């Protein structure tokens, strides 16, 4: 049930409400509030918002090495020669931000774009796993840190990756200490994340 009913609400406003409510975390009520805010706001502000949205679509690409979003390919992290020869594997691009902020890790990242979850229809083939294996074979990093979420999909993905990586002769570790089970990595505070990273254990 959308709160913007045709007839009462002008068609373009109803359209905007509908588009906004497709965004994660935006219900029909919030969408309506945002739509009316945009409606009352200046044309210039609205244009800036529209442009910013199109900009990310036009100018952001996936880095072909780590699969993080970036303006250039390879991304600045992958092309930075001072980064250490270690790869930290995460589920989502947001996790890269959270982990890099801690300053506890100076290597590079690999974004899987999800975690294995059969009930959600996500098998290993849907993720950047084959790409990770190829990358490890090529780059021969000193260590691969499996920083997937500490829930069932995250743990299952880490276990699966561990089995694939060990035969390649690389050290595989997982941050565990201090991170409570069931939560999303991106919501952990920097101190906790930093401690979890520095206290990672070799699998």
């Amino acid at each position, binding site marked *: 049930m959308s709160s913007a009913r045709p007839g009462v609400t002008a068609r373009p406003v109803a359209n905007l409400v509908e588009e906004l409510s497709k965004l*994660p*975390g935006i219900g029909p009520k919030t969408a309506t509030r945002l739509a009316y805010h945009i409606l009352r706001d200046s044309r210039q502000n609205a244009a800036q918002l529209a442009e910013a949205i199109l900009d990310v679509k036009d100018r952001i690409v996936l880095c072909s090495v780590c699969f993080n979003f970036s303006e250039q390919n390879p991304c600045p992290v992958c092309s930075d020669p001072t980064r250490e020869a270690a790869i930290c594997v995460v589920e989502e691009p947001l996790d890269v931000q959270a982990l890099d902020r801690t300053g506890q890790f100076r290597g590079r990242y690999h974004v899987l774009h999800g975690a*294995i*979850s*059969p*009930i*959600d*229809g*996500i*098998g*290993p*083939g849907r993720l950047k796993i084959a790409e990770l294996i190829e990358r490890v074979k090529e780059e021969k990093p000193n260590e691969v840190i499996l920083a997937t979420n500490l*829930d*069932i*999909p995250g*743990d*299952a993905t*880490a*276990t*699966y990756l561990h*089995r*694939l990586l060990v035969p390649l002769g690389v050290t595989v570790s997982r941050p565990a200490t201090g*991170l*409570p*089970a*069931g*939560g*999303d990595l991106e*919501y*952990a505070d920097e101190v*906790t994340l930093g401690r979890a990273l520095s206290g990672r254990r070799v699998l």
Partner: protein
Amino acid sequence: MTAERDRNYRVEAIVLGRRDFGETDRIVTLFSRESGKISVIAKGARKPTARSGPATEYFARSRFMLARGRDLDVVTSAELLDRPTNLESSLARLAHASHMVELTGKLVQEGEVYPAVYDLLHLSLRHLGVAEDDLPLVRWFEVNVLTAVGYQLDFWSCAGCQRELGAEPNFLGLRTGGMLCPGCRTGDGQAMQISVNAQKYLRLLSREGIRSASSVRISPAVASEVERVMAAYTSSVLERDLTSLRVLREIREQTGSYSV
């Protein structure tokens, strides 16, 4: 006072699924013993500090205190009772648990109560990993959950002529929704042939309890035949394919190629 009490209720439930909602919330689909299938919102469940985190994990069996909300009921407290162990260690086992949970979620109707199905699911999830091979348990669950929701298959007599099925290859009529003898199969445009051994095994699954059914050893050929038969039957009952089974097939291919 009474109104206050009516707004809150307690259920024991198994988590069937979950998805992110808002900044840190989660919408959790529960299969409860008391109220059947319900979708509830767990506020802040994705924060690492959330106490409801482990209780809203996939496959968890938990005790929930819920408050009636306008759209969705809200989790006010949650306590984990148990969950299947070692799911992370085997992708196939994770897919088996997912399959049982998905099948349950798709077979039950919201607003109806299924205590027998609840107990069946709980028992089966607990038995995962107990036997060396999970497959007999999964097949036992399929046969019995279908029976519990009213899609029972009679593996002894023909749904067409009602005569007892002979010791020969017979058929599962997907249109008929029952077993058919060779004489009656032509009346069903979607009849699957079932070997004598697979029929014996299906009878055993529908007759025996979880312990004896899950300890029977069968050949890989019969195992895959029965898996195909049950997948076809559940898909025809549900009128859609099961996601977890598709991923399970993918996992088998992938792990084969990576020799895990």
